[in-house]
């Protein structure tokens, strides 16, 4: 009986949970761990599941909490925050773009480029290069649509930290995307 339940859960919900987690943590190993921990937590608390919500919703609630915990761990390391906030060297002292960092013309139709599959693989790659705390803030804002004040509260970071983290993340992503997209 137990075996059937475990098998059914993993078959029915494993991929769903994984597909939800992977874009949010940008690391397949971490995503797998979080999904495993979710199943374990549910397994151990099965007595508390009284069927008010569906199994799927219950598992997702556990997963979402695990993801937030993961984000919180990333944002407690002050040195990581400082690192992620440290000077982005795309500008010189006069506030002009440096030659190396200045955005170039992409020569694409900006409206249709997002429909290209390769664009997404490069975007995923570039997102995975963000510092964990940057990725956390970025994912919460753009994947989950959470407001900045809420993000600051959840992660226990200041709003000025938030601003610099998200701004630098955007600069980095754009640079990375340009480098990898156009050096084919």
């Amino acid at each position, binding site marked *: 009986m137990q075996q059937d339940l*475990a098998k059914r859960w993993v078959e029915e919900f494993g991929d769903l949970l994984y597909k939800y987690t992977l874009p949010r943590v940008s690391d397949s190993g971490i995503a797998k761990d979080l999904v495993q921990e979710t199943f374990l937590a549910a397994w151990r608390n099965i007595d508390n599941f009284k069927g008010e919500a569906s199994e799927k919703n219950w598992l997702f609630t556990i997963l979402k909490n695990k993801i937030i915990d993961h984000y919180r761990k990333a944002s407690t390391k002050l040195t990581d925050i400082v690192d992620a906030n440290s000077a982005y060297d795309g500008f010189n002292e*006069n506030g002009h773009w440096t030659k190396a960092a200045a955005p170039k013309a992409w020569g694409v139709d900006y409206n249709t480029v997002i429909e290209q599959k390769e664009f997404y693989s490069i975007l995923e790659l570039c997102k995975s290069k963000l510092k964990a705390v940057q990725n956390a803030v970025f994912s919460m804002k753009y994947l989950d649509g959470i407001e900045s004040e809420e993000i600051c509260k959840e992660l226990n970071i200041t709003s000025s930290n938030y601003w610099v983290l998200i701004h630098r993340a955007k600069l980095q992503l754009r640079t990375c995307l340009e480098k990898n997209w156009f050096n084919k």
Partner: protein
Amino acid sequence: MINCKEATDLISKKEEKKLSAQQNIKLLFHLFLCRVCNFFYKQNNVIISSVSLLNKKSTTSLSKEEKEQMVEVLEKELIP
């Protein structure tokens, strides 16, 4: 006149609708004159609109072995 670094800061703030009217005008004026920041503005827009779609574009699944492993881990525990 704002510089490019300031312009990129304002572009971020504009996205969160936290620009004053005066800042907005300064930004628009800079974008009117600066080709490079225009690239940044458009490219930034592409990135933030496409990131939210990463949800749907996620195509990787767990392998058969990975799933079997997960089942094993659960089975090793006894339901209390």
